[in-house]
């Protein structure tokens, strides 16, 4: 038996590429590092500086506005539980990291999604890249990220961005493609530019899908926090990683439960705020030229597109 041994040196090639990129584009990565680091610090400062009860009150009020009493009370209990198990600071770091990564991912993914919706060529070319980003095990991103950005919060953010990008792009593309063709045609028929059609017709009508994408980006970002902790990122991942190393079930459970609470609060908040279907504790005034949607009792069952308020720039 003389089986020829074939070994494609793909890994060596990637090594070579990363080495080259590291040396050649060091300046670029320094700048990126500065930006991501600064973004994280700014958001982290926002959440970690005020006393815990201020954050709790703000988030609970937001929950009340978005979904009503039950969710508000649930949020309060959940956040107090996080404080009670002494994971508050970690939770705030986690939220900051999630928001920083999700923000960058959304800023990248929405324009890319729009581009893909408009150009079939771009769509065909980018789709496999998205598949790659989404299915490549998230740990793998960390390796070059450490080389490029060093240990700390930035490689975690970068890996999170890459991992979380795909659903934002996909749902933006899907949303814009799903806008009623006739309405877009109407825009053209009245002589609107494609920019105006995008702004006034496609984006508003695709908003539910795009916001579902944003929600997914946030949730995927959150799911990366534990992994980000392995390269030195701050947050709830840290106690989880350390409890794994010390077989500390109790600490692991406390931190894990905190992640779950943060995830549920973030998910429900962004899902609701995204569709604009907020629960109103007080009847909205018809001020500022806004259209007074007349919600029938149980209006939440009305399709989102019909009850979403008029955010037209003309108003």
């Amino acid at each position, binding site marked *: 038996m003389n089986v020829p041994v074939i070994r494609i040196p793909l890994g060596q090639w990637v090594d070579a590429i990363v080495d080259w990129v590291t040396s050649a584009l060091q300046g670029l990565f320094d700048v990126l590092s500065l930006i991501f680091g600064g973004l994280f610090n700014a958001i982290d400062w926002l959440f970690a500086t005020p006393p815990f009860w201020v954050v709790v009150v703000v988030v609970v009020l937001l929950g009340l506005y978005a979904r009503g009493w039950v969710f508000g009370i649930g949020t309060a209990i959940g956040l107090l539980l996080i404080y009670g198990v002494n994971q508050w600071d970690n939770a705030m770091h986690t939220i900051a990291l999630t928001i920083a990564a999700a923000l960058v991912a959304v800023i990248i993914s929405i324009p890319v999604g729009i581009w893909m919706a408009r150009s079939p060529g771009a769509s065909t070319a980018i789709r496999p890249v998205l598949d790659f980003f989404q299915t490549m095990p998230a740990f793998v991103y960390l390796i070059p990220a450490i080389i490029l950005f060093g240990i700390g919060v930035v490689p975690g953010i970068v890996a999170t961005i890459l991992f979380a990008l795909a659903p934002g792009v996909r749902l933006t593309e899907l949303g814009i493609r799903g806008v*009623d063709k*006739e*309405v877009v*045609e*109407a*825009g*053209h*028929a*009245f*002589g*609107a*530019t494609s920019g*105006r059609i995008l702004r*006034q*017709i496609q984006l*508003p*009508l695709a908003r539910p899908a795009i916001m579902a994408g944003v929600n997914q980006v946030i949730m995927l970002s959150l799911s990366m926090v534990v992994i980000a902790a392995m390269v030195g990122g701050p947050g709830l991942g840290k106690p989880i990683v350390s409890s794994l190393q010390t077989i500390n079930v109790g600490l692991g459970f406390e931190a894990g439960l905190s992640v779950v609470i943060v995830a549920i609060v973030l998910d429900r908040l962004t899902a609701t705020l995204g569709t604009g279907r907020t629960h109103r504790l007080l009847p909205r005034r018809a001020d500022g030229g806004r*259209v*007074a*949607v*007349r919600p029938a009792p149980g209006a939440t069952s*009305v*399709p989102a*597109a*019909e*009850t*979403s*308020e*008029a*955010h*037209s720039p*003309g*108003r």
Partner: protein
Amino acid sequence: MPVDVRPADLPPTGVDRDPIALEVEHLYKFFGRRHKEAVRRMKDGATRQELQSLGTAAVIDASFQVRPGEIFVVMGLSGSGKSTLIRMLNGLLEPTDGDIRVFGEPISGIPAKQLREVRQQRMSMVFQHFALLPHRSVLDNAAYGLEVKGVGARERRERAAAVLQRVGLAGWEDSLPGELSGGMRQRVGLARALAADTDILLMDEAFSALDPLIRREMQEQLLELQSELGKTIVFITHDLNEAMFLGDRIAVMRDGVIVQQGAPEDILTDPANDYVAQFVQDVDRARVLTASAVMEPVRATTTLQAGPRAALRVMRDYQTSAAFVVDASRRLLGVVRDQDVLRQVRGGRPLEDVLSADVAKVGPDALISDLFVPAVENALPLAVVDDAGRLLGVVPRVTLLAALGNVPHDTAELAIVEPPATVPIDIVTDALAEEAGR
């Protein structure tokens, strides 16, 4: 009826002094690869089926002209290419071959900016499923065309509100489209197109998604608006009744080809082929055909000067009991009955004494549906007279029925003379002979 304001049947070719709003010449649209080759083969006579392997020929060699103020209806079943055709008119689809000119200016192959200007200034569109912006109020929807044009917020809202009032939506300005019924939504669509204040209105199956009753209401409202505004309208529909009701001229499409175009009555009475004939079978003729389309030539006419004997002879020749009396310029004066005339002949008295004005007159543009009541109330055929009072023809009851049943009514063998004679022919002949002998 708004029929009066619609232009009469127009000459088939353009006259220079009469500007053409929209002109389409040898227009082709082919969906598929190698469309240039496909068009070349179609021009050489290849049929739609032969080109099926290459793609779909949606529009094949379409040519027509639409004059200002005219409602031009393109009628065809789904898949006949009518929607493709209308989308080429404002450049939503690029024609594969052929020319489209709007007030003399070409539409195809012009820069995008210029095309947008044409769409803003020259033509607006009403869509089958309304295509309103669901997140905007009715007022802002109606003002959309003006907004795109760059009209200021205050002015465009005022103008849009005025148009909304005109279409009967006053008080709904702040509602969202989702809160309106289908008919009301399409009124918003219509208001949006009207507010844009373009010369040409493209209506793509605009009323097809509505309930029959609402549809009829919208059709009537469109004609009413049209009588005021005099827009040039290209209307697409698959409903022949709608086409006949709205259209000044109609083009019938089948498999991408315009198989016939002409006035509604021409298409109804003289279908170009079996396809069109089959199509028009189900049309509500009473609402399409006019008195002038079904009227018979007047046979029994006489003049006062000719006297009672001439009148009696005419009636005997046609075996009828009545004759229309006209003057030298064929203006209808009235009618005389055989028994009265016979008495006058025997008594040697003039015809004037028995002349009766008791005859129902109708205009040539009166719809058949409006003729039934007068036809029931009068024993005599209806007299079709023009504006000057000249007798153009008559509509006997038999003709009315024949017109509804699509029976050929204009053949010579079926000469219809009503009412039948009431005095036996021998008596009339004797009276005439007796008089002649005197």
